[in-house]
């Protein structure tokens, strides 16, 4: 079943075109890795899918779960089941994790026509999902990401993902800045949430993360286009040979 279908997507930041015709189809149950040199448009792709106001879509189409994604404001995309694990999670002083998460969960429920979750059910869910990423109990009472270490911030992203149970999660360099133990915890969380109905896009520079989160498909994004698509072995080749051979194939070197 097609979960996400991106057709000839073009997007700008200011006057500069970053995405120059991306085509990508993701089925439920799949994990797709997106790799590529710096500046190729990987983070732009995730920002455009989540509706960041910093980017303008100039042409193309994105169908998510049968709906036109690009017409929706960011909050509706999230409520429909898109989730982005930020490369740089934002600190929000004064807004507690509990309050933040409760608002997010209940706004989604409202969108789905459900009643707000009771306080006790919510706290129970929070406790349970926190354990999944071994997040300290105290973190829940602190302000969102404020004073969190790099590893805690990334684990907190996966915790939020576990709370919101998205259909499509986009992990934008979730491995950057993580030590081996934290990487293992994050990957464990992601794998635990993986099922036949949902899918993930894993954006990374390194094969290492893909040892833990094994992709079904690997794409190379280069100069705003997907220039190569293969199985998980492509990541190993890239790790060994870098990107020059692809650039050569494209006549860029």
């Amino acid at each position, binding site marked *: 079943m097609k979960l996400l279908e991106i057709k000839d997507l073009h997007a700008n930041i200011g006057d500069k075109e970053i995405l120059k015709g991306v085509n990508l189809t993701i089925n439920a149950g799949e994990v797709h890795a997106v790799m590529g040199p710096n500046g190729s448009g990987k983070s732009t792709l995730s920002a455009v899918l*989540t509706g960041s106001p910093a980017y303008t879509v100039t042409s193309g189409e994105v169908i998510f779960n049968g709906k036109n994604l690009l017409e929706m404001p960011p909050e509706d995309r999230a409520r429909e089941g898109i989730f982005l694990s930020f490369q740089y999670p934002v600190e929000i002083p004064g807004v507690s994790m509990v309050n933040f998460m409760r608002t997010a969960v209940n706004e989604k429920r409202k969108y789905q026509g459900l009643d707000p979750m009771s306080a006790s059910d919510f706290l129970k869910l929070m406790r349970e999902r926190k354990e999944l990423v071994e997040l300290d109990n105290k973190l829940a009472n602190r302000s969102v990401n404020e004073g969190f270490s790099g590893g805690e911030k990334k684990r907190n992203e996966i915790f939020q993902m576990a709370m919101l149970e998205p259909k499509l999660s986009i992990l934008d360099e979730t491995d950057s800045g993580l030590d081996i133990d934290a990487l293992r915890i994050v990957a464990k969380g992601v794998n635990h949430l993986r099922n036949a109905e949902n899918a993930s896009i894993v954006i990374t520079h390194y094969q290492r993360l893909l040892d833990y989160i094994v992709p079904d498909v690997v794409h190379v994004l280069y100069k705003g286009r997907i220039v190569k698509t293969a199985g998980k072995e492509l990541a190993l080749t890239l790790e060994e040979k870098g990107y020059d051979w692809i650039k050569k194939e494209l006549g860029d070197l």
Partner: protein
Amino acid sequence: MSVEQEYIDIYRQFSTQIKQNAAEPTNAVRDAAFDCFAQQGFPTAALEGYQHSNLQERYAVNYGINLSQFNIAFNPYESFRCDVQSIKSHLLFVVNDVFCDETQQAQLVLDKLSQQGVIAGSLRKVGAQHPELLKRFYAKAADFNTDATVAFNTAFAMDGLFLYVPKGVKLDAPVQLINVMNGDADSMATSRNLVIIDEGARAQLLVCGHAAKSCKYLCNRVTEVFVGKNANYEQYKLEDTTADTTNIGSLFVQQDEASDVLINEITLHNGFTRNNVNVDLLGEHASLNLCGMAIGDKQEHIENHTFINHAVPHCHSTELYKYVLNDAAVGSFDGKILVRPGAQKTEAYQSNKNIVVTQSAKMYTKPHLEIYADDVKCSHGAAVGQLDEEAIFYMRSRGISLTEARMLLMLAFANDVVENIKIEALRTRMHLLIEKRFRGENYKCNSCDSCK
């Protein structure tokens, strides 16, 4: 005829009547204060510290004034409920500018206070019974030469709250003073409060400003507070009136050795607000925590001017003011800290942070430090900005709507000031009032005349 001429004529014609209706010791400075006012007139925009205010315009309305101190037929205990009236307190009212002590309910409250040794009541009546206290304290902190609105108040004010907490007395509950404007015509109220917290005593005062009707009202209220050695005092002010109300509030505090004072002034709703806070740290090891917040929208105008005078060594002051301005609201903050020669080991920290939500809202801020001692720790900072767009997107990407994301950020912003409320019931109530204020919800109690 200039705006002030009318008041100058009134004073010349009726000063005998005013004096007859006031406590004798308050008359000692009345004429001198009047001369000072007559000479200066109301502050104009040409005056330092009044660049952003148009007080002339505010005073130009033809207000009724109550020279005879008639009681308005209005029992606030029965027909008015304040936003924070549910908290346990010794509840007292000033209706326009008359202290309300003729009702049974007021007498009960005053009796309870007097059982604890506290002298409380009308400045006009109870003050007259304690001339020694008035002679010693009245107009001693509020220098009318510095500000024409204070001079005006000293000339015209006859009544207000008088509160004396004797040595060592620790009040069992906060005193709540509700200044409520009532009357079917445009009215002016000029009231005066005198608070004396003697050595080692402890008291909390919550002052609420409300308007029961929607006429044009102007209130000029001056409060003097003397906090004795080792005494502990907290004063909270909550302003929640109407767009047609002008509030000019001046607070003068003198702190003695090792006294501890907290002042927190919150403006939720008001047409035009001018708060002056003057604190003199006169005894070593005195400590002050001064904070305030203003939420403004539509055409509201809110000014906070503060002056902290570090006159002696080893005193500590922290100051925090926050504003959230929406629509075409205008805010100004002018905070001065003076560290006098010899006031070594002073610690003084000032911060003013503001969020300007729209293009048409304006914020003026002027933090300043003047330091004449060389062994001190002082800092000041001011910022005017918008809500953090990155944080808003982060929240939206989790399914939180734009409105709700903004709300969470504004509440978080306001939180620092609310957390400085030590009366728990008031703090909880204030969280709710602020949230409703931001949401634009009607939060009236629906149980009193003004809300029906």
